[in-house]
């Protein structure tokens, strides 16, 4: 399989995972969060409603931002916002990571230029 085809296939899989499958992901607290919630009660929304636990020490996120918590607040529908946030995230990470790794490989190439490929 050509590299371009492999990457295209993989990118499509990642987009489907982030933009669609993620909508069906479990909304229960994850392993770390559940342990930090030990001692607290939570309501139906998952917010802490009483008790005493480690997670109460958690401070607000410094930045927040328009994509905070994998949603887009300005998009009315939570489903659509979540899906778009996932798709934006996958494309952004794909572009950013590919760019950074290319810079890394180029830095190497510059030093071994005389050696050829």
């Amino acid at each position, binding site marked *: 399989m050509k590299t371009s085809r492999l990457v295209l296939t993989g990118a499509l899989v990642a987009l489907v995972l982030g933009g669609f499958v993620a909508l069906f992901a479990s909304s229960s607290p*994850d*392993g770390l969060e559940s342990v930090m919630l030990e001692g607290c009660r939570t309501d139906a929304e998952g917010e802490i409603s009483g008790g005493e636990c*480690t997670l109460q020490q*958690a401070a607000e996120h410094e930045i927040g931002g328009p994509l905070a918590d994998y949603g887009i607040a300005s998009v009315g529908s939570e489903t659509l916002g979540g899906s778009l946030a996932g798709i934006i*995230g996958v494309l952004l990470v794909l572009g950013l990571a590919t760019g950074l*790794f290319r810079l890394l490989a180029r830095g190497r190439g510059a030093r071994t230029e005389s050696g050829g490929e």
Partner: protein
Amino acid sequence: MSEHALHIPNGIIGIPTSLVFALIAAAAVGVCVAVARRGPDERFVPLAGLATAFVFAAQMLNFPVAAGVSGHLVGGALAAALLGPWLGVLCVTVVVAVQALLFADGGVTALGLNVVNMAVIATFAAYGVIALTLRLLPRTRTVLTVAVVAASVVSVLAAAAGFVLQFAIGGEAPGQSLGEVAGAILSVHVLIGVGEGAITAAAVVAVALARPDLVYALKGTRIAGAPHAKETV
């Protein structure tokens, strides 16, 4: 807290501890950049970019592991198998940094803590298990699968142990001893590691069948029994 806040948030681990781990993370990432610059050739760039996007997407997929508890992939095992330890650390670091800076997932103050656990510890632990297994056993599809699943479990446990260490230094649990925190977090992460192993093995075997030359852990060999893949670049 939101249902999507997955990594260590701010305020759980004290600021001095967080800053020390930020320095450790920066040093580790610096070493990985330096070593990776000597290692990879351009052929790995597209796959490295793709693996990073895949880890980001897969981290959004929380799967249930017990009543009311979910888990998600860390990605260290995937990155280690496909890219090797040095590029692998950088791959997961990009994911964790984007999550903290753009998706409010994991505090910015806590970024060093999360990078050390999920990128540095998880990737190196996974690579150790994979490299050792593939050195001792023949490179078949089954062995590759077993190696990746074992690496996933070990790497997720190692990342969780990293959190326990950070928590022991700079955290405080009301009404819980450190031993209780450690026991709870390690036991739930065994299950998360098994889930991560299933996802990671599927992804790594798929790439190994299509393009064994791009799987770092195979070191240029193909897995036994696989059809001869065309190695066109």
